[in-house]
């Protein structure tokens, strides 16, 4: 578990350094993701300890969003005075995004056996 966490943190660190000095347009964790993915490809398998940590993260991803999202209390008056626009934009946009993604996928991939 700890061995996996150390490896993932190392790649996060590499990503942050690369973002700071080489690729300022891309967030560090994304570069870390790509680097880890490349390393897994070279290695040909996922170390068990890394797999363990990654599974733990993906099963509890929701928890990690809570601190940032509680920021809603700070923007509450601002959001409330734009309530209709915000609600309509969020609801319609997420439905449209899911629908377009799914329909394009089905249209292009339809000759493939399911």
């Amino acid at each position, binding site marked *: 578990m700890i061995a996996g966490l150390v490896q993932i943190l190392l*790649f996060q660190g590499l990503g942050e350094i690369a973002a700071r000095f080489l690729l300022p*347009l*891309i*967030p*560090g*964790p*994304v570069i870390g*993701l*790509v680097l*880890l*993915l490349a390393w*897994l*490809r070279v290695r040909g398998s*996922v170390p068990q300890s*890394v797999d363990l*940590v*990654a599974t733990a*993260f*993906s*099963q509890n*991803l*929701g*928890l*990690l*969003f*809570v*601190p*940032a*999202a*509680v*920021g*809603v*209390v700070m*923007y509450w008056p601002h*959001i409330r005075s*734009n309530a209709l*626009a*915000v609600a*309509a*934009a*969020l*609801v*319609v*946009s*997420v*439905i*449209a*995004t*899911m*629908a*377009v*993604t*799914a*329909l*394009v*996928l*089905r249209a292009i*991939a339809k000759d*493939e056996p*399911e």
Partner: protein
Amino acid sequence: MNPQLPAIHEIWVYLSGSPLLALILTLSAYQAGVMIYEKADRNPLANPVAIAIAIVAAVITAIDMPYAKYFEGAQFVHFLLGTATVALAVPIYKGLDALRGRIFPLLAALLAGGATSILSAVGIARLLGADAAIIGGFYAKSVTAPIAMGVAERINASPTLTAVFAVTTGVLGAILVRFVMDALGMKSWWQRGFAVGVAAHGIGTSRAFSVHPEAGTYASLGMGLHGVLGAVLIPLAVHFFA
């Protein structure tokens, strides 16, 4: 009364000065959210993240704790978002084999979905007269929150507002995905999963994993690819149009 025992308010002052209070609050609110979700038979309406946010927001408002103060403690949880983003490499790696032969449809669907996300949200918000600060928060809202916040900084939008919109989008996507996919008659799990991953990132992916493993794998693939491409393309698109 034992004179050596500290008064209640002293304990309170001590606790609220340490990160512990915010951490306990965040984790227990999330635990409560998960328990309610399980009790409700994983009904999409009982989204655990939404419940946790509501509990934490209500508590810090009730005890008059400023958000900055709460975040000082909760940042330890928040920090792990970056680590979790890196860890996304694992489900993407596992999905790579499944990707073979599907890469073109998946990328085409992702680009169409990502463009739809921005154009529809920004378009509707403009149409209904939202102000510039609010509109700025919509650009990255379909990208997973840690990446969305990074993108927001690069396009001079508020990272917090972007995170709020991203999480709301995730919760809405997790709630609505079943109805949208059923209405469209989408049958294959990988297509349903990919769509919710692209539109509703991590929270949609959690939902997909709790419904079907194949949907979950493709959802994390959709979220990961959208994150990587969005991080590069969204700032370029904003600079191009602005």
